[in-house]
């Protein structure tokens, strides 16, 4: 079934070396010593959930709770140490927009490079090109090297590419923190549009308002484990309880 994501008892282990072995000499001389001092750290453990086609699921958790690790496994960047991961459908990871930009190349060249990184052919990207440029509002700047772009221009181009690749699963990680309010609103509109068209959305944010608005289900991660999986309101309450934090009545949440 396209657009589904299944995690079964997934764990991700990182080895933490007290002193990292990075040279041959150290590896040879410290061959056995370094094995003893390697600490294991489980960034995720026993994580199971299923996201069905067309679902919009939020993922929240404190800093270091394992959100990024989970997203990287879903995007195929990291391979889980244990458990089973099944991703069906074309994933468009918006993990840090513009990750694939080469500063020396123009915006135009970067659109094609980014498209290729996401597995698109040149023909497909040529078809999407005008739409991407229009959405990004870059105009003639598209033929300038991106190193001369402002951070807002960077993010706009990155977002424009990510949402134009017709994903079946869209992974969004804190991308709306950049760009001005008007552009953020435009991005949210585009995300809602994708949601309306049946795209599966996996949304990670610290902005609880947006999570509550966009997702019908929220998963709370805490120290690498799933603490809660259910409706947004109780999930957000649980998240805040775990953090020991209640937002001030007069300030906006997030």
């Amino acid at each position, binding site marked *: 079934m396209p657009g589904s994501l299944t995690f079964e008892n997934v764990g991700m282990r990182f080895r933490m070396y007290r002193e990292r072995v990075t*040279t041959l000499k150290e590896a040879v001389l410290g061959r056995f010593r370094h094995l003893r001092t390697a600490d294991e750290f489980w960034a995720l453990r026993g994580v199971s959930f299923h996201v069905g086609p067309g679902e919009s699921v939020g993922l929240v958790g404190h800093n270091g709770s394992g959100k990024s690790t989970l997203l990287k496994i879903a995007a195929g*960047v990291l391979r889980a140490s244990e458990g089973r991961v099944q991703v069906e459908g074309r994933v468009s*990871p918006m993990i840090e927009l513009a990750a*694939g930009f080469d500063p020396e190349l123009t915006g135009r060249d970067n659109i*094609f490079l980014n498209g290729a990184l996401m597995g698109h*052919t040149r023909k497909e990207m040529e078809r999407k090109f005008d739409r991407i440029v229009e959405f990004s509002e870059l105009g003639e700047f598209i033929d300038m090297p991106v190193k001369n772009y402002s951070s807002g221009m960077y993010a706009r181009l990155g977002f424009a590419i990510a949402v134009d690749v017709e994903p079946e699963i869209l992974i969004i990680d804190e991308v709306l923190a950049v760009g001005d309010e008007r552009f953020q609103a435009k991005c949210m509109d585009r995300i809602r549009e994708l949601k309306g068209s049946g795209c599966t959305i996996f949304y990670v944010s610290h902005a609880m308002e947006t999570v509550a608005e966009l997702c019908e289900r929220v998963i709370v991660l805490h120290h690498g484990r799933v603490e809660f999986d259910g409706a947004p309101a109780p999930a957000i309450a649980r998240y805040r309880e775990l953090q020991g934090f209640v937002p001030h009545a007069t300030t906006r949440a997030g």
Partner: protein
Amino acid sequence: MMALVGSVQAVLRYRELLALLVARDLKVRYKRSTLGMLWTLLNPLLQMVVYTLVFSTIMRIGIEGYPVFLLAGLLPWTLISVGSVSASMSLLGNQSLIRKVAVPQAVYPLAAVGSKLTDAVLSLPALAILAIALGRPPGVSWLFVPLAFLLAAAFTTGLALLFSSLSVFFRDVRHLIDVLFQIWFYVTPVIYPVSFLENLHPALRMALALNPAAPIVRMFQVTIYEGRIPPAGLVGLATLAAAVSLLAGGAFFVRSEDRHIHNF
């Protein structure tokens, strides 16, 4: 073996990305240099002038048409050495991408080799002109030059995969390979003809006969400089060297690919 086949298929799916990465490398490299692509030609030509001065006027190696002989050997050697050295840093250099985008990691070392292969192919016309000027015009034997390039590229790719992966685990690999390629250069018949090795002690000669780069380089010297169709024995040896390098490098890379990200 199955893993290797799967990885090859994965890389093939990303061939357009590979082409774009090669184009990116060439574009970035030649931007803001007035002579641009011309440097690809000037570099080996200047090297040739220096070696020709040293070896035909000072050391009197006594080979007819020495510049052609030298360039024919330098062409594959530069591909092998510069390709491997630049590929060795390709994973470390692209680590920010590898951490975020899931594409087969082999595309990065392959793109490094592809860019050096482009350089080598582009310097072929200059070599042809030089060969004509020195009375060795390209003939039928040049039809085997593409085969020679294919084998040299496959050989380099194997080394590139091995070194790029190794240098993720051990950062001093890149210093080691600098030294390795210097020694390797002098034991490979590039600046001197293979006949020079015949006077050596038999044990030493046996050891040098195992040099896998020698038949690859020889393929170019035979077809371009000697103007002969390469004998089957030579083609067989060069193919063996290329296949072993590619399979060993590929197998190593596939086995260690998932662990790279933990060692950046």
